[in-house]
């Protein structure tokens, strides 16, 4: 059955013309597009900041920037990439895909959705404007530890209010996603028939709802400590700066899973498509994500092993952290088992998904190393930590976002990207991301501290390699931007079929490509062949057949 725009008299208008379409829009596809464009701009801004860092670290000594500006770059790079790059990209994907995946016409609260997006440019306007202020941008690290962050100059309130706005945006997005998933699914779509991307976002949204307000509280305490004489973290007034670290990481650890759970959902969608098999262990994937989400609330202090905790606490947080490796291992196992004896092909989305599985796992292993409390005292605040979290965030979260865009953009625009350019983009990205970050493991183990603009000369070789990798990686991303913009958005590529990929299943592939402005105005009938998990048909595991 076709779900082409079945325009009735209430919906015979398309999008409004001109700029007001984008400002006033409540359409989930328009807002998804806005989120993704915003995110891409932020990725390039944050990427330029990282190039300032890598240029300065190319050689020991100070070449290009002063230490104060270097610290501003590390701080702003992190804030822009986390809150402006990765999170809006996932929200954009959720906007585009969740209504089409669960079979409803839009998100549950479309006007809230519009508002949630449009406060983001203001949030980042506030944040980025600090670069032009006397005293410069915030420079105390994205973790904003007091008392250092309280020495920030005029930029301080801009930092706090920018974070408040980002938090409001994330919370409204999370509420929208939860209500959409729980209230608006197509009639036959039970929870365990939902695509895993939808599941991953449902869990992520609950994490957002639980921890973004805690971050808002923590930064509000910083604000009142600085301007209103409170002493939450000021030792002179009876406060405790270490308490900030506890509150921050109570937010911060679930936050890192907010940055990776949607990636799990994307990879769990892409690998079965190109292995032409059902996902192995669908239920265990859901339970694994839920376990990871639960555990994320009880491991925060592994970020602060060196702060002076009793042995019992060190042990608790060490073992709880290592426990997370179990559900994560289940997921990696299931991805590999999905590919086992599959009819695999290696189109660009699949390559990025496979790159994700391999390289994210490296980041997971270095995370396990960091979880060992006694050795963490050596690794803490070293470049080893930088290597670890960039492995899970760049070839982890960012590769998954790139994979998702390659995978779904033919559905969005109706045109295929150029496969050869996609392959070139993947291989150069995969090589140079390792050139960038793998040497940082060695520099860190040898003792190079993070957040330092200068270093001892014995670290030079690793830093030269790392800087070269970073510059090439950055340039390679223009291949991707060109491919997406020219072939898909400007429609120079081959027209896409509605199914796009031979092995793709899901409601989003039952609508034409490009997806009409309004889809699923009437709830669709869910054909069992479109269900990702084994619940569809327990006897039909190797799905190739057409629906009856």
């Amino acid at each position, binding site marked *: 059955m076709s779900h082409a725009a*079945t325009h009735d008299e209430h919906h015979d208008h398309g999008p409004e013309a001109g700029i007001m379409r984008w400002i006033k829009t409540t359409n989930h596809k328009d807002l998804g597009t806005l989120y993704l464009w915003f995110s891409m701009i932020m990725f390039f801004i944050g990427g330029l900041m990282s190039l300032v860092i890598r240029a300065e670290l190319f050689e020991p000594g100070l070449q290009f920037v002063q230490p104060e500006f270097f610290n501003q770059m590390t701080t702003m790079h992190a804030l822009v990439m986390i809150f402006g790059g990765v999170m809006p990209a996932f929200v954009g994907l959720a906007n585009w895909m969740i209504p089409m995946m669960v079979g*409803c016409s839009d998100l*549950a609260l479309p006007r809230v959705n519009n508002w949630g997006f449009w406060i983001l440019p203001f949030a980042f306007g506030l944040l980025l404007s600090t670069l032009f202020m006397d005293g410069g941008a915030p420079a105390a690290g994205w973790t904003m530890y007091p008392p250092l962050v309280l020495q920030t100059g005029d930029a301080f309130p801009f930092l706090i209010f920018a974070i408040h706005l980002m938090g409001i945006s994330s919370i409204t997005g999370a509420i929208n996603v939860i209500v959409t998933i729980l209230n608006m699914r*197509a009639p036959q779509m039970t929870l365990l028939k939902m695509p895993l991307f939808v599941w991953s976002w449902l869990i992520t949204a609950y994490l957002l709802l639980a921890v973004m307000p805690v971050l*808002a509280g923590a930064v509000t305490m910083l604000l009142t400590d600085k301007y209103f004489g409170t002493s939450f973290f000021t*030792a002179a*007034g009876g406060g*405790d700066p270490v308490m900030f670290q506890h509150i921050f990481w109570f937010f911060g650890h679930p936050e890192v899973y907010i940055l990776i759970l949607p990636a799990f959902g994307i990879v769990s969608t892409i690998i079965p498509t190109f292995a032409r098999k059902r996902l192995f262990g669908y239920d265990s994937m859901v339970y694994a994500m839920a376990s990871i989400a639960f555990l994320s609330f009880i491991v925060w202090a592994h970020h602060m092993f060196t702060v002076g905790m009793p042995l019992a606490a060190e042990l608790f947080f060490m073992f709880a952290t290592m426990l997370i490796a179990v559900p994560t291992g289940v997921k990696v196992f299931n991805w590999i088992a999905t590919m086992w004896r599959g009819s695999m092909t290696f189109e660009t989305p699949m390559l990025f998904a496979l790159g994700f599985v391999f390289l994210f796992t490296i980041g997971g292993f270095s995370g396990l190393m960091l979880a060992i409390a006694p050795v963490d005292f050596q690794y803490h605040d070293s470049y080893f930590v930088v290597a670890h979290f960039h492995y899970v965030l760049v070839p982890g979260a960012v590769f998954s976002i790139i994979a998702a865009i390659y995978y779904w953009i033919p559905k969005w625009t109706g045109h295929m990207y150029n496969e050869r350019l996609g392959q070139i983009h993947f291989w150069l990205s995969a090589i140079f991301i390792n050139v960038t970050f793998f040497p940082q493991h060695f520099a860190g183990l040898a003792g190079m501290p993070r957040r330092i603009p200068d270093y001892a000369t014995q670290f030079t070789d690793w830093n030269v390699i790392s800087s070269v990798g970073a510059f090439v990686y950055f340039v390679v991303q223009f291949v991707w931007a060109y491919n997406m913009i020219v072939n898909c958005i400007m429609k120079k590529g081959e027209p896409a079929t509605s199914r796009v990929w031979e092995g793709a299943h899901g409601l989003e592939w039952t609508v034409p490509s490009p997806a009409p402005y309004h889809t699923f105005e*009437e709830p669709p009938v869910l054909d069992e062949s479109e269900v990702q998990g084994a619940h569809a048909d327990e006897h039909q595991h190797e799905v190739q057949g057409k629906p009856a």
Partner: protein
Amino acid sequence: MSEPRTQSAPAEAPAGAPAKPRRLVRGGQLLLVAVAMFGFGYALVPLYGFICDITGLNGTNRGLKLEAQVDEAVDSTRTVRVEFLTTVNNNLPWEFSASQSSLEVHPGQFHTVTFEARNLAERDYLAQATPSVVPWNAAQYVRKTECFCFSPQDFASGEHKIMPVRFLIDPALPPEVETITLSYTFFDATGLARSDI
């Protein structure tokens, strides 16, 4: 094409769709969760104080609070070394030192150590010292009946103060602890709304 509309009616269906209030209700409930979590962030503050209090984390529990009456019960079979550390925060122009850098004590016996501080600045300060004990598990066995850290100290420009600290080490101190470091940091508390440590 026109399937029966169940509970998942389209979002913007104009004709009396029952889904609209339900999604607003759920959205409102979730918003309340977010507001509650904002409150939870603040609730972590007293919770943290409570946990520090019962475990002695950060050396902020009983041992560092003023006690009116502590009975001496000298355990002369054991000697513990107590070291004193003084710091002025933020490079303020103050002098701050202990009359002696360390002391050998028997648990259960009172000792008095004097600390000296001088404000070298041109202006007056309200100064607050914060105590800290290492190792953390010794904190609750340091008992004090007198200390300048229990209240903010006024320092006029150039003022010099001699401040005694009267303390004993509780004989219940864990046997593996042989050295206790008692550290004081003076902070500028001018203009701060003071809360109890």
